[in-house]
């Protein structure tokens, strides 16, 4: 199995451990990742709030660079926001040839061209469809049995494109965590929004959303995520939110590949679980 790999900007800094854990488990599962040469920012939610051409052209740059690599066509994307932006260009190529031509005209000056062949896929899609719970099960050496995990999917890997899971009642991560031996924590917040960049811009909105999610997870030992924005929102402000609401809602929030990697017996350091880049909340606050 060979995949092109688009880490995205967050995975080079604030979500470094997501990058480490993704590379580590994919390697252990026998998949080769080829990082897209010289990939650039997808535009996140900023580009589409400013200019519709920019919102398509930014991710199109990286997809056209992906097409320069001939040995693979599926692009593994761990960040849900990056995934959606890349996916939007892929969909445009399939359904709106005139818009695609306009974007390619903008790219042409840098000798870039996107044909639609490079196909962005979210990491959860690849883990649940290509590897599957059975593939994970075969690698398990340290069952997570006894650990109650609340699977948190967030929004953009599920919506608006119905690709690998039910966009309202997702189950793909549940099956993977169950294969790793974890006890699933039943809850209704799995696909609710964390507020994304509103934690930075309009915290009074995001704080409320995150509080409801964390409160609902209060019977779990940990939350599993598949997006750097969700992870930072859910874990990074727990102390502040707990004091604001007068209720202790602190809980560790891991990336799915970190938990799977632990169950596969991979060293904590390779999964970014060591002190250097592990949880972003002070241990005393846990």
């Amino acid at each position: 199995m060979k995949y092109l790999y688009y880490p995205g900007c967050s995975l080079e800094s604030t979500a470094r451990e997501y990058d480490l854990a993704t590379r580590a488990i994919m390697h252990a599962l026998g998949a080769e990742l080829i990082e897209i040469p010289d990939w650039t920012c997808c535009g996140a939610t900023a580009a589409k709030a400013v200019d519709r051409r920019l919102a398509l052209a930014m991710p199109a740059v990286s997809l056209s660079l992906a097409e320069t690599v001939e040995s693979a066509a599926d692009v593994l994307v761990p960040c849900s926001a990056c995934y959606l932006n890349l996916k939007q260009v892929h969909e445009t190529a399939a359904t709106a040839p005139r818009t695609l031509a306009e974007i390619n005209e903008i790219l042409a000056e840098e000798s870039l061209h996107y044909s639609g062949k490079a196909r962005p896929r979210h990491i959860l899609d690849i883990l649940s469809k290509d590897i599957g719970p059975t593939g994970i099960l075969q690698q398990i050496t340290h069952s997570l049995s006894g650990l109650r995990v609340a699977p948190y999917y967030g929004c953009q890997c599920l919506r608006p494109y119905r690709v690998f899971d039910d966009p309202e009642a997702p189950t793909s991560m549940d099956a993977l965590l169950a294969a790793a031996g974890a006890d699933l924590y039943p809850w209704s917040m799995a696909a609710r929004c964390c507020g994304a960049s509103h934690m930075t811009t309009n915290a009074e909105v995001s704080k409320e959303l995150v509080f409801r999610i964390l409160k609902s997870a209060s019977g779990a030992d940990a939350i599993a995520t598949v997006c750097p924005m969700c992870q930072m929102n859910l874990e990074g402000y727990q102390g502040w939110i707990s004091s604001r609401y007068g209720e202790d809602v602190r809980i560790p929030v891991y990336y799915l590949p970190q938990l799977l990697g632990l169950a596969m017996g991979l060293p904590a350091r390779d999964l970014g679980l060591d002190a250097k880049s592990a949880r972003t909340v002070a241990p005393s606050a846990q």
Partner: protein
Amino acid sequence: MRRKNEAPQPCIRPEQPGPALERVRERVRTCIQCGTCTGSCPNAFAMDATPRKLWRLVLMGQTREIFETRTFALCSDCYCCTLRCPRGLALTDAMADLKQIAAAEKHGGDPACTAFYRAFLRSARQYGRVQETRLMARYLAVMTPRRPLMPFRFSGLGLQMIKKGKISLRRPAGGRTLEGLFARIESRRNGQ
């Protein structure tokens, strides 16, 4: 929104919106005002006008009222309304259209969002990839005069991340800048 002592506007004949708003109106033309969008929106509790009301304002071409709301700026792109709309309307994209109009015409929208998007895109344009530390520094430099307490909310998390080596002032990896791409799109926009 309309002030209390202001006479209600006649709502029989819609106003003629500009071409940009016309595109949004086209997107929501078949809205039946059922309110599924409002019921599905996680941020509706914080909005001054509900999404359902916003679509009505769009259909009526009430430009001034639309851009006085915070509704579109508070959309966090969760796509719940888009998924559930019984008319199959691309409502999240319509919210993005309104954000784009507000950004282009420099009226309405949310000042914090505008500052954040601007700092974000500046970093992406310059380095090709977003340098998260510099992005936050730029954003806070703009916002602190307006909201002096804002930096304190991030200081704890920032210190944790510095300690763990997750943020720094280093240039991002990769050498491809997006300067040319941004410039070409800007010249197209101005040429319209």
